[in-house]
């Protein structure tokens, strides 16, 4: 199983017009900026391409493409290169913005489109699960966030109060 093969497959899908654009999120996305943390799956955020004449945008062409190339469905995941991959639409304005402003990183000659560190941190703040809070603290501790860019994302997405609460709860002693 190789995550680089997953990225190469997604790039191929984009090159062949199956998807418009994509960005890697979740723990795999965070690994582009932080130390690697064990994860079981890969979260790929995609703008699904509308089928001609269809009112509802469907992920079906994407699954058909992968299944034709040997990928198998496993619950809500599709197995690509040995990894369970979850394709997710941008369900909030923040994730939509993150998808539009994703950055391209080179992985030994393979381009990988990944959420910016600031967007990953803001998404973690918005999602608010325990592991997201831990991830946000990792981003802060690692010093990889551009403070101004992060603040602008918080402002645009009505996350300023949430950030203040997070600061009080976890960063109080640093104030």
């Amino acid at each position, binding site marked *: 199983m190789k995550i680089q093969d997953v990225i190469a497959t997604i790039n191929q899908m984009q090159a062949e017009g199956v998807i418009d654009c994509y960005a890697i999120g*979740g723990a795999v996305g965070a690994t582009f900026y932080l130390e690697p943390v064990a994860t079981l799956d890969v979260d790929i955020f995609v703008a699904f391409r509308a089928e001609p004449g269809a009112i509802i*945008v469907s992920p079906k062409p994407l699954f058909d493409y992968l299944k034709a190339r040997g990928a198998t469905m496993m619950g809500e995941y599709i197995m690509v290169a040995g990894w369970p991959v979850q394709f*997710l639409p941008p369900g909030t304005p923040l994730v939509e913005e993150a998808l539009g402003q994703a950055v391209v990183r080179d992985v030994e000659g393979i381009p990988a489109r990944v959420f910016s560190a600031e967007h990953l941190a803001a998404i973690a703040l918005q999602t608010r699960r325990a592991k997201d809070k831990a991830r946000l603290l990792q981003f802060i501790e690692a010093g990889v966030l551009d403070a101004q860019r992060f603040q602008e994302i918080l402002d645009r997405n009505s996350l300023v109060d949430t950030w203040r609460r997070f600061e009080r709860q976890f960063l109080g002693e640093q104030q």
Partner: protein
Amino acid sequence: MNLQKILESKRALRQVHAARPIAEKLRMLDVLREREVAIRGTGTPSTAPGILREAAVPWHPKSK
């Protein structure tokens, strides 16, 4: 035992890992997942009730 010193050394180790080339870090994820699967005995995140798992972002289609 100096807890502060221990925490600092852990932080330094994390920074060393974070600074590795991305391809190397992704290979580490491959290995970490293999290990996780071996321990759990399953290749996909569990959907059993009561088990905490990463939830998908809710999908709200744009209204025109």
